[in-house]
């Protein structure tokens, strides 16, 4: 951990006891986010992206709980804090943006009141100053005629404008970190581009770190500095975004990139998308060894019995026996 590290997630494990056994949706996940750095967390549905995000901000739904590992924010371990302490971390130090803006907004309170109350809760400022700040926040996220919109309610905004308001709300407490879980998945492509550009610009200007959760490789490429690829609750590959996407070392990452239509594989009559056979396993039926091995085109005998450790290979780091073999 360097002095620029904002967030450090170390060996994070989340478990959910159920009648049919203990599920482990997040398993020994480790990564860091630096100040002002945008880190993507990508993977197909069920990979454990959202639960990782919830675990970091202490919003796991019971009976899910962090069973081991730690989350450290600016040198302070926040994974052991009680609910009251966590509430202060959320909003003030970590802002959140979710796929559905309505989960973050109170339908019965005006936008201006929500913004200024949040500002007052987290910053020692007067009501007047908070109102000023709320107006500036709306202007910053590009709400047209912001002054006249302060008294409007969430339902009076379009989907894209609502998500802008949520970003304003996430940023108004001047947090060091934003966790955004599929923030543009419900938006049309033109609005998605607007919202992503906005998020990127504001976080760069304020040196805010971002954990951007998405299933979209294109969004990862255009928005993030580094990327964590999750598969079945584990980190499959981690590294600089451009390096991971252009020279992926883990067969799963390579498969994902090849399955995403892109100029290299989609033009021409002979073009063919790369197929990964099968689909992500359920948590009750996780394969032994490397969880990806039944779908892997480069499976070796060791993959069926042993979980590979994260090992550097070339420019990225992968949890794959191809790397452990190479470094042996």
């Amino acid at each position, binding site marked *: 951990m360097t002095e620029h590290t904002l967030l450090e997630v170390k060996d994070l494990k989340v478990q959910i006891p159920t009648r049919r056994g203990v599920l482990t949706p997040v398993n020994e996940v480790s990564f860091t986010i630096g100040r002002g750095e945008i880190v993507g967390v990508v993977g197909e549905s069920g990979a454990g992206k959202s639960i990782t995000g919830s675990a970091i901000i202490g919003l796991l739904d019971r009976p899910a709980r962090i069973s081991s590992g730690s989350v450290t924010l600016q040198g302070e371990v926040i994974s052991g804090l009680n609910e009251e302490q966590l509430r202060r971390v959320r909003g003030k130090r970590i802002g959140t943006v979710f796929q559905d803006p309505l989960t973050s907004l109170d339908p019965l309170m005006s936008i201006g009141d929500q913004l200024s109350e949040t500002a007052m809760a987290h910053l020692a400022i007067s009501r007047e100053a908070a109102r000023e700040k709320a107006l500036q926040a709306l202007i910053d996220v590009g709400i047209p005629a912001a002054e006249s919109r302060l008294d409007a309610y969430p339902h009076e905004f379009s989907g894209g404008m609502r998500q802008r308001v949520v970003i304003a709300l996430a940023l108004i407490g001047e947090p060091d970190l934003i966790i955004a879980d599929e923030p543009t998945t419900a938006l049309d*492509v033109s609005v998605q581009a607007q919202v992503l550009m906005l998020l990127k610009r504001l976080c760069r200007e304020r040196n805010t770190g971002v954990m951007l959760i998405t299933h979209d490789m*294109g969004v990862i*490429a255009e928005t993030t500095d580094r990327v964590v690829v999750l598969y079945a609750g584990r980190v499959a590959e981690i590294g600089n975004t451009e390096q991971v996407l252009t020279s992926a070392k883990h067969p799963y990452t390579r498969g994902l990139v090849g399955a995403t239509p892109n100029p290299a594989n989609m033009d021409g009559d002979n073009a063919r998308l790369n197929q990964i056979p099968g689909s992500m396993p359920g948590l009750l039926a996780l394969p032994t060894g490397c969880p990806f091995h039944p779908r892997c085109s480069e499976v070796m005998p060791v993959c069926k019995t042993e979980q590979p450790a994260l090992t550097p290979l070339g420019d990225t780091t992968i949890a794959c026996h191809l790397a452990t073999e190479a470094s042996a």
Partner: protein
Amino acid sequence: MNDSLISVQSLSRVFDVSKPWLNRVLSGQKRQTLKAVDSVDFTIERGTTYALVGESGSGKSTIAKMLVGLLKPTSGRVHIDGVDLTNASAADIASTRKRIQMIFQDPYASLNPRWRVRDIVGEPIDAFLNVSGAERTRKIDELLEKVGLSSKDGAKFPHEFSGGQRQRIGIARALASDPEFIVCDEPTSALDVSVQAQVLNLMRDLQRDLGLTYLFITHDLAVVRYMADHVGVLYLGRLIESAPRQELFDSPAHPYTQMLINAAPRVDGFGRMHEAADGEIPDPISPPSGCHFHPRCPQRLDACRIEVPVVQHTGRRAVSCLLHGQS
């Protein structure tokens, strides 16, 4: 030589979206209508894929439903292999119907959960083909294998399958009546990319092997680029540009097409900062006058507020924009 299987002419659909009668009378409001599809024209050549792309509410699903007969057009015509579906005898419509099938976005909602896969796939066989007994069973097994499932899967129920496998069941059912034309409404939008790739590849293989014609509807330009021969772009119910795939992506003519292509995230777009287009899709009940796109258009002229652009044809491209060759 142009060999079109599907021809759509001035197809329109208007929905009545008025408040209930009493509320309307009490609050003194007029009837309200919504033009979901507005004079759309296109043809699809036999054995090819025509993709309709557009953001939500642009009228894609409404067009799909009119083509398969789930919804009546308000006006306009749909010809399938020369038969005018909007104005044909009941017998002609019945014999044409079995040549058209549909694949839906949601493989969960579109399969009856209480039916075994065998019965789901067999339903169109019973409805349209004169096949029974061992031959029917053989045909169902063959269909399941064709879409990458096994004949044993016929005995199972939909909930025993993953999303991608359920979409394969949907495809097997669509193929069961030996159709020539399949309308696919966002068939992979609910699937993960690795599974989407399986389904898209399967659909291309089936097209090649069976000579199928597709209307492929999606909001995802990357998928369009992989699947389409010809592409039509919809905005608020109007077809604003259509062109062969390569032409459309290499040199989009309409400012809206340009904006869409620019806004789509690209796996090779590292650190790209794009000038995102302004605004959002307006209320379809009272769309902007003139060209519907004018309030968001970076290249708009004064006339765009007033004049509805007439479609201009150059080669195989059609564009409705005042910037393109109108006096």
